């Protein structure tokens, strides 16, 4: 545990908590010690004052979907560099997906990732366990052992691949009930999407790239919500990307089925029109879709049909992206641009206010991941996981200035107007002004 913080007390002055009125906040000994008029008065003598006038204060952001690449692809990212990117992006907790090398399908691997996260000490790293051995889709992994391990895994996912076998998905949904776990499905019917390169539609027809039809995602979600309802399990749907998927989720929730869903920032902001350049920075799975899908996803996130924003941060080395489209890897980085993109897509458009952002990017993700100390309200006595956001100053995204080890962001040169300027993990400053603090 790194306890090298220069100060254990911060007086955050004049921040707009959840976008509301300006207030003072005192963080001491890892908790929110005082709020409002009391804060300045109760501050210890060695308190560090932070001028937060004009800044938005949110509970520390929680990411349900991140790829930290370690073990196996440390050239693209490590748990340490990914944690740094998370802290810079305003996150105090991330869920690290299991498609590493070796796959995180045993207690041993998930504990390794968990230890690496604690050693970095920049955010809480919660390893996600694979549903099937080796992500092979045919044999259940030792879900119970992973749940009991030091990593206390609660979310299980074969992300990258779909649990397409209906019987296996049913068994997984049933099995995790024993430890209040949740299966997070990457919904992609494999046979309908063999060698698929981009969304199937008018753009793919012109570009001569094999299409990934929306129905390949929607048909799996439809099946899974019915299964979850039938066996009485929790289900989480990763990176929802189509309008049809949103409708199915709305129907399922209306029926009382215990399903939650996440959407990525890029699916709220970019479309398949971007692919016309054949620039592999826009190559991602699930693919960028149409403007109609973007609009439906924004609406779904606004009305709560979609519960959370999850970055699906997918770092890739230069060789894996600096080539022709068909040869390029799928994925974009996202931890450091999430706040800016969500602000542009949802807050600037009037679809969500900052309190809504706190709900979708902190409270609900923490609840889905069963993280007791995260996503809490900013109240006296709560853990001091705080993110301060400057929503006024315009800035331009510069990949070279990022903390992530990889540079595959589609937003290079994009002008945005919201960025995290300070992140506190249980009262300790982990990042400020775009730089990680150790």
């Amino acid at each position, binding site marked *: 545990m790194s306890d090298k913080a220069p100060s254990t007390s911060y007086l955050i002055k004049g921040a707009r908590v959840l976008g509301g009125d300006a207030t003072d906040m005192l963080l001491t000994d890892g908790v929110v010690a005082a709020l409002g008029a009391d804060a300045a008065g109760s501050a210890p003598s060695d308190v560090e004052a932070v001028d937060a006038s004009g800044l938005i204060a949110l509970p520390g952001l929680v990411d349900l979907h991140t790829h930290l690449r370690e073990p196996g692809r440390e050239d693209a990212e490590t748990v340490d560099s990914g944690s740094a990117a998370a802290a810079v992006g305003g996150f105090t907790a991330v869920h690290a997906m299991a498609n590493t090398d070796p796959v995180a399908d045993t207690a041993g691997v998930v504990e390794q990732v968990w230890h690496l996260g604690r050693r970095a000490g920049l955010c809480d790293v919660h390893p996600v366990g694979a549903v099937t051995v080796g992500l092979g889709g045919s044999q259940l992994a030792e879900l119970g052992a992973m749940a009991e391990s030091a990593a206390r895994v609660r979310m299980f996912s074969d992300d990258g691949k779909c649990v397409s076998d209906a019987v296996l998905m049913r068994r997984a949904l049933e099995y995790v009930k024993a430890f209040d776990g949740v299966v997070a499905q990457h919904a992609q019917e494999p046979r309908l999407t063999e060698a698929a390169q981009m969304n199937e*539609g008018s753009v*793919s*027809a012109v570009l*001569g*790239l094999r299409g990934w039809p929306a129905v390949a995602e929607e048909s799996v979600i439809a099946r899974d919500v019915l299964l979850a309802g039938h066996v009485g399990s929790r289900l989480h749907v990763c990176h929802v990307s189509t309008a049809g998927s949103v409708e199915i989720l709305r129907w399922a929730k209306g029926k009382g089925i215990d399903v939650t869903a996440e959407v990525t920032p890029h699916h709220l902001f970019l479309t398949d029109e971007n692919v016309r350049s054949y620039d592999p920075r826009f190559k991602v799975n699930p693919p960028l879709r149409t403007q109609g899908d973007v609009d439906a996803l924004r609406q779904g996130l606004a009305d709560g049909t979609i519960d959370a924003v999850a970055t699906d941060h997918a770092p890739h080395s230069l060789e894996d992206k*600096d*080539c*022709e489209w*068909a040869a390029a890897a799928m994925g974009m980085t996202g931890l450091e641009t999430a706040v800016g993109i969500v602000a542009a897509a949802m807050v600037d458009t009037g679809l969500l206010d900052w309190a809504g952002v706190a709900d979708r990017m902190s409270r609900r993700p923490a609840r889905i991941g069963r993280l007791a100390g995260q996503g809490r309200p900013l109240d006296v006595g709560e853990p001091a996981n705080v993110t301060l956001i400057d929503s006024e100053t315009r800035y331009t995204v510069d990949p070279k200035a990022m903390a992530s080890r990889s540079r595959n962001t589609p937003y290079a040169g994009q002008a945005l107007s919201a960025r995290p300027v300070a992140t506190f993990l249980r009262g300790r400053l982990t990042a400020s002004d775009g730089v990680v603090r150790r």
Partner: protein
Amino acid sequence: MTRHLLSAADLTRDDATLILDTADELARVSDRPVKKLPTLRGRTVVNLFFEDSTRTRISFEAAAKRLSADVINFSAKGSSVSKGESLKDTALTLEAMGADAVVIRHPASGAPHTLAHSGWIGGSIVNAGDGTHEHPTQALLDAFTMRRHLSSLDGRKIVIVGDVLHSRVARSNVLLLSTLGAEVTLVAPPTLLPVGVDQWPCAYSYDLDASLEGADAVMMLRVQRERMNAAFFPSEREYSRRYGLDAERMARLPDEAIIMHPGPMNRGLEITAAVADSERAVIVEQVTNGVSVRMAVLYLLLGGSDSALGGVE
């Protein structure tokens, strides 16, 4: 001015007409005792072929040599192991050798675009076929052939039959022919037409017999037998019965209609031997015209200080 030829969509009607008119003149060079012009002397044209295609490569090679350019043939098989390193490293090597133009054929759609916008190469990129995306010089030589027989393309009815979904020839032809004022109809079973074809500047139909009425030109596309195994059509017999061009269907065409095929042909599948060898088939002529059209493209891209394509002067 654009110094690349990546897609038929990049060509305005003036560009396309300039290329075809220039090809017309250059076609006469082949009839002369000295089949050479000095125009591209000192320029280097590289044929960068990541897919086997002797026919197209030889066509580009002949075109470049008749303009006195130096030709370098680079045959590279892209492997999934080396991935994109093949393309980037190869490109940097060619740039070091001073290629004025790179003619590229690649199995990945968009590879010429990547090459043109990457900054790895300073010369002109000519797309000789990328994946299932486009094959602009094929469309140009097809239009040239049609123009020779039909005199003008405005309002002409052109029918293109076959595996449109996987055909770069079809895509380029639809774009170029509609730019030149022709009316194009695509004919295929529903499984071989792309989702989104209704947005294309052409009509489409599942009925070959109905579509052949009054056609000025019929272009048959190659259908790969492997598509049968991926359930695009049930059997060769059913495909050729419903979508193949045989003597009986040919007889119902207007007298002046011509029959085309980009090659190589599957005799007996999409086209019968009788049709392929008939007087109305201009398939061999298409190959000859390919050299003239490619000479025109190379001349217009490399012959002057700047490309002559891509915009109004």
